[in-house]
C-alpha cells in the first residue's frame, strides 16, 4: 500500500517536472522560430494572413533586400572586423596573462591579482573612462572597442586557476629539458588548454558581436557602426525617440520581413557556433573557479 502511494506521487512529480520544462522550452523557442519563419514569408502574406508559423510561400526577398542595403552591409562588415580582431586580441592577452599569473613563485603576483580583482569591485565610471579613451585619440576608431575591455577579469581568473591546476611536475621536467617559458607555454600549456581556450574564444566573440553601447558612445561616424547599432536603429529606435539617430536613417522604414531577416542574421552566427562548445560549459569549470 505504502509503496504504491509513493509510486503514485512519483508519477505526479515526473509529469509536473516534464510539463513545466517542456513549456519553458517552448516559451524560449517560439519567439525565435517565429522570427526565423516569418523572415522567409512574403510581405503580402505577413500583412494579410494573420497569425502563422510556417509560410505558405517561401521567399528570400528580405535577405536579398538586406544584402543590397548599404547601411546593413557596412554594419555587418564592421561587426565581423570588430569581432574577429577583438577576439584575437582579448584571447591572446588574457591567456598569456593568466598563464603568467598562475606561477606561484612570481614576485608581485599578489599585487597583480589584487589589481585584477579590484576592477570587479570598483570602477572609475563611464565618464572618466570615456575621457581616457578620448585622451588617447581612440574616438572613432575600433581601438576604443578593443583595448578598454581587452581583459575580462572573470575569464582571466577562471583561466588562471585552470593553468594552476596543471601538474607542477610537468613544468619541472620541461625546465630540466631546457625549455624556455614561451616554448613551454606554446608547446605544452596551449595544447593542454585547448578546450577551455575555445570556450573563452566563444565568450569573447559573443561579447564583441553583441556589443552596442561602447560603439554608441565611442563611434560617432555612422559608417563605423556595427550590426547591433544598425539593429537598434531599425528595431528599437522607431519606437522611442532618441537624438542620436541621424535624420537619414530615421526616414528609411524597413519592411517587417527585412526586420525579421536582420534579427536572424544577427542572432544566427553565435547560435550556430555554441552547440559545438556546449559540452565544455557543463564541466563545472566555472563553478570550481568561481572563488579565485
Amino acid at each position, binding site marked *: 500500500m505504502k509503496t504504491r502511494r509513493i509510486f503514485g506521487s*512519483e508519477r505526479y*512529480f515526473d509529469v509536473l517536472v*516534464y510539463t513545466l520544462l517542456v513549456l*519553458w522550452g517552448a*516559451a*524560449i*523557442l517560439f*519567439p*525565435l522560430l517565429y*522570427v526565423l519563419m516569418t523572415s522567409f514569408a512574403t510581405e503580402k502574406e*505577413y500583412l494579410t494572413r*494573420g*497569425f502563422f508559423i510556417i509560410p505558405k510561400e517561401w521567399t528570400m526577398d528580405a535577405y536579398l533586400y538586406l544584402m543590397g542595403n548599404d547601411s546593413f552591409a557596412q554594419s555587418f562588415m564592421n561587426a565581423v572586423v570588430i569581432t574577429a580582431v577583438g577576439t584575437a586580441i582579448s584571447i591572446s*592577452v*588574457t591567456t*598569456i*596573462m593568466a*598563464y603568467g*599569473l598562475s606561477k606561484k613563485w*612570481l*614576485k608581485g603576483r599578489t599585487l*597583480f591579482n589584487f*589589481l585584477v580583482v579590484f*576592477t570587479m*569591485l570598483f*570602477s*572609475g*565610471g*563611464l*565618464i*572618466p573612462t*570615456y*575621457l*581616457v579613451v578620448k585622451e588617447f585619440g581612440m574616438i572613432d576608431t575600433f581601438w576604443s572597442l578593443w583595448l578598454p575591455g581587452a*581583459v575580462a577579469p572573470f575569464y582571466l581568473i577562471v583561466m588562471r586557476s585552470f593553468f594552476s591546476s596543471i601538474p607542477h611536475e610537468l613544468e619541472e621536467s620541461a625546465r630540466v629539458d631546457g625549455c624556455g617559458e614561451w616554448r613551454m*607555454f606554446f608547446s605544452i600549456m596551449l595544447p593542454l588548454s585547448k578546450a577551455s581556450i575555445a570556450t573563452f574564444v566563444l565568450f569573447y566573440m559573443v561579447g564583441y558581436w*553583441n556589443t*552596442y*553601447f561602447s560603439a554608441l558612445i565611442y563611434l560617432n561616424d555612422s559608417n563605423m557602426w556595427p550590426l*547591433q547599432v544598425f*539593429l*537598434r536603429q531599425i*528595431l*528599437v529606435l522607431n*519606437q*522611442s*525617440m532618441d537624438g542620436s539617430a541621424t535624420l537619414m536613417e530615421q526616414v528609411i522604414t524597413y519592411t517587417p520581413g527585412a*526586420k*525579421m531577416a536582420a*534579427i536572424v542574421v*544577427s542572432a544566427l552566427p553565435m*547560435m550556430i557556433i*555554441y*552547440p559545438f562548445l*556546449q559540452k565544455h560549459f557543463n564541466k*563545472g569549470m*566555472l*563553478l570550481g573557479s*568561481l*572563488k579565485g
Partner: protein
Amino acid sequence: MRSSVTEMRAANESRTSSAAAHYIKRAFPIYLMVLPGLLSIVLFKYLPMFGVLISFQQYSPFRGIWGSEWVGLDHFVRLFTEQQFVTLLKNTLFLNLIDICFYFPAPIIFALFLNEVRARWFKATLQTVVYLPHFVSMIVVVGITVVLFASEFGGINQWLDVIGLPRYEGLNDPDHFRWIWLLQNIWKEVGWSAIIYLAALASIDPTLYEAAKMDGANRWRQIWHITLPSLAQVILILFILRLGSFIDIGFEHIFLLQNPLNLAVSDVFDTYIYRIGVQQGEFSYTTAVGLFKSVVGLVLVLTANAIAKRSGKEGVY
C-alpha cells in the same frame, strides 16, 4: 679573521646576486606575458579611477585635469538635492527588488527541475534550447518583443486574436516597463544562469539520495533536505555577487527600453549619467554620480561578504 669574514660576506653577496640574476632570467619572460593585460587594466581601469578627481572640479576639457577649478563637494551636494535623485534611487530599488524576488530564484528552480529529469536526451536537448537566448544580444531580445507585440501585425497579438483573447497593447505603457524588463531578463538568462547550479548539483554524493530513499523520503523531501542544502554555498556566493551589481543594474538593457514616456519609472543612475554626461556634456557632475554609485556598490559587496563570513560561511573575497 676579519679578512675571512669579508670573504664570506662577499661570497654570500655573489650568491644572492647570482640568485637574483637567476630569478630575473627566469621571471623576465613571465613579466612580459603579464604586461599587455596589466597595461590595459592600468590604462583603462585605474587611470579612470584616478580620473574621478574631476568630480571635485569644474572640469573643462580645454584646461584639463591639472588646470580645472576645484569645487569641493558641490557636485555631490547637487546630486543629493536634485529631485531626480529620489526617482533614481526609487527606480533602482524597485528594479532590484523584483529582480531579486523573481529572477534570482528562477535559475535555481530551473536547475532543480532539470536535475530531476532522468532521460538524458531530454535533458541535453532542453539545455541546448534554454542556453540559446544567452547568445543573442539585448537588442535582438527587445527587437523580438517589439515584432511580437506590435499592435497591428505583432505575432503574439495575431495569435491572441485567433484564440479569442484580448490583444496586448502595453508595450509602451510606463506601468508595464518594469515587468517587460523582468520577463525579458528571465527569458534571456535563466537557462544560462542555471549552469552554475547544475554543476553544483552534479557534485552531490548520490549515496545521500539512496539513504534518503531507504528512509522513505519522497522526491520533494529529497529536494528539500539534500539538494537545496547542497546548493546553499553556491546560492550565497551568487547572492553576494548579485548585491555587488545592485546599483549598476542592467544598463544596456534599460537604455533600450527607455523612452521619454517611461522615464519616471525607467531612469536609473547609469542612464542618467549617459543622458546628462555623454549627451549634455556635464562631465564633472556625472563623474560624481558615477563615483557615488561605485562607492555604494563596493560597500554593499564588502558588507554582504563580511556578513556571510561572520555567519560561518565562506565569502567570495
